[in-house]
């Protein structure tokens, strides 16, 4: 008894994993060609083919239905290309037209079949919406073969496909058959989608070709790795989705796989190290905090400079007035600088530590040097300098600083006549 359940589950697990992995592989290329929705059109365009094959053959013979589906899917792809070539329409409109025309005619045919009163037409719908739970060992064998064919072809033509997608014009001038490579990719995509339809349904097949590749792209900038990761993420969502639906019978396999895939995608969009939302937010926050700190250091420096005493204690009120900070903002910035050992908190204000003075000097030097540069090299009037320098003082690195000093002949005063400090620790 248990053995039987395990065997069915294993079948479904292996099948879903393979199908999703291989869909992710071909989907990655579609995504890079900015044709992610081509899979959507292909999947919908399979419907009229299934209906036609059923009407011609008269029963639900699997090879006939698959062949019909593949035939109309590829016809739709050809129509899409033809519309692009023959009309001024762009990708999205051309896809929309091919998808709706083919799907629409499929619905017409389906209605016609139902009207004829065939006894067995019920199965046709499951062809479109999938029923992964009924996966047979023969299906799994077929999927293994399909995965092998796809992997071998993509491996063989990896370099040429990469070139043809990245720079088709250059590839053409080099004599590569760009159109044939395009046809190859489209055929693989159509083949995988049609093969998966009966098992997984339209929506899942579209999701399986788009979502894992999009997630994988977040994690790597190398095509080979993106491909492997896409296959991995696809496989994982296929396996987890199939398992989840096996343990909770109310959950259908297809939707479960889509949900798992979407969660992996969400995770990737949020958490990936370079392109992720979180990483970007952290980087921006880091820059913002540093700018606030630099500004407070420079403000303190200016007050001390005026008083001729860098060890002076500067009152909060003086600092608040300088750039209209709220007391809360000032306290937060000051706290960060205190914890970095650049400031010391005194009963009636703040005082720069020795390290704080050096850090403030760094900012002031850059600010005044940039003002000098703008005024000397670009002849900007002196009232136009400050705002630009306010941004550049945070950006200038040591190399640029040296260049500036050299170019300007190591100036000692800025255009406003204020002294440009020397870094005391040099």
């Amino acid at each position: 008894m248990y053995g039987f359940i395990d065997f069915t589950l294993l079948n479904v697990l292996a099948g879903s994993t393979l199908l999703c992995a291989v869909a992710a592989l071909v989907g990655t290329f579609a995504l890079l060609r900015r044709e992610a929705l081509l899979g959507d059109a292909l999947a919908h365009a399979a419907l009229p083919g299934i209906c036609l094959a059923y009407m011609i053959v008269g029963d639900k013979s699997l090879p006939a239905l698959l062949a019909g589906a593949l035939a109309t899917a590829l016809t739709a792809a050809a129509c899409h290309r033809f519309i692009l070539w023959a009309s001024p329409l762009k990708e999205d409109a051309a896809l929309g037209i091919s998808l709706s025309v083919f799907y629409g005619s499929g619905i017409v045919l389906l209605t016609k079949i139902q009207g004829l009163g065939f006894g067995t037409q019920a199965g046709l719908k499951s062809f479109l919406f999938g029923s992964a739970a009924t996966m047979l060992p023969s299906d799994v064998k077929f999927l293994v073969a399909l995965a092998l064919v796809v992997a071998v072809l993509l491996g063989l033509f990896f370099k040429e496909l990469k070139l043809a997608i990245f720079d088709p014009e250059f590839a053409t001038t080099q004599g590569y058959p760009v159109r044939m490579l395009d046809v190859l990719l489209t055929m693989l995509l159509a083949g995988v989608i049609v093969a998966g339809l009966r098992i997984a349904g339209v929506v899942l097949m579209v999701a399986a070709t788009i979502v894992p590749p999009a997630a994988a792209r977040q994690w790597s900038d190398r095509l080979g790795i993106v491909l492997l990761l896409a296959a991995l993420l696809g496989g994982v969502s296929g396996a987890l989705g199939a398992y989840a639906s096996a343990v909770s019978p109310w959950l259908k396999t297809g939707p479960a796989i889509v949900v798992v895939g979407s969660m992996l995608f969400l995770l990737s969009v949020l958490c990936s190290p370079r392109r992720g939302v979180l990483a970007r937010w952290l980087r921006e926050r880091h820059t913002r905090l540093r700018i606030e700190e630099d500004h407070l250091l420079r403000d303190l420096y200016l007050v001390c400079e005026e008083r001729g005493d860098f060890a002076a204690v500067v009152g909060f009120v003086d600092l608040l007035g300088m750039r209209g900070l709220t007391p809360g903002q000032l306290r937060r910035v000051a706290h960060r600088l205190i914890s970095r050992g650049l400031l010391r908190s005194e009963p009636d204000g703040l005082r720069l530590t020795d390290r704080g003075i050096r850090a403030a000097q760094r900012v002031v030097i850059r600010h005044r040097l940039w003002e000098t540069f703008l005024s000397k090299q670009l002849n900007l009037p002196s009232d136009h300098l400050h705002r630009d320098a306010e941004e550049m003082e945070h950006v200038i690195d040591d190399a640029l600083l040296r260049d500036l000093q050299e170019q300007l002949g190591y100036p000692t005063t800025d255009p406003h006549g204020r002294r440009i400090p020397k870094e005391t620790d040099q």
Partner: protein
Amino acid sequence: MSQRRTAATTAAIEVHDLTVSYGAKPVLWDVDVLIPAGQIVAIVGPNGAGKSTLLKAIVGLVRPLTGWIKVFDAPFEQRRAWVAYVPQRESVDWDFPTDALDVVMMGLYGQIGWFRRPSREHRQRALQCLEQLGIAHLAQRQISQLSGGQQQRVFLARALAQNPKLYLLDEPFAGVDAATEDTIFRILRQLRDQGRTVVVVHHDLQTVADRFDYVVLLNLRLIAAGPVEEAFTAENLQRTYGGRLTALAYAAETLLRRDVARESQR
């Protein structure tokens, strides 16, 4: 007859009676031009004059309505290996998951051949090409992380990797910093001195006189072509750009500068 023969043998590109149209709109009309080998050649003309289309017609990316083109005395299809085409920078998706070295390596795919992986020597060769453009340290950088100038350098490095006799560059100086422009011109001169031919679709009339040997002025039709000293004249510019004052002002300034420079040399 004998004159024609010599012209044909020293020409890198021979364009005869070329007409190209996109739909009903002609972009090039009856263009006849010989581009000599071993020179740096500028193709100039206003926007929409058909400059890029001429390059694309040469490398077979657009099909002519009438006329024919020969590259080193043969159809382009027989000369692919001799020609490096550098498309406009915006023509590709720079967010593509690949790095600078990988793009340069694409220039070697012809050598590597189908079904094979690039070897260590190929990587080395690609790295040398990046080195020539002064950006070997960016080899592993994802291409969207490069500045416009650096991306253009990568494209030129890819062309160098092909080791061709003829370079066709479509607006290589558009949106590029001054340092990159200098580097690219330096390399183009080196290539010319090695006997290669360089054809550049160019926008900046100010640099034509100083930096090019030969100029092709185009505005749907061929206006003039010849050595810069002969063909790059105020009259020809007027005919190319018509009443476009800004362009003319530039050109007048350039010509003036050139004359002043000549005077001072005497």
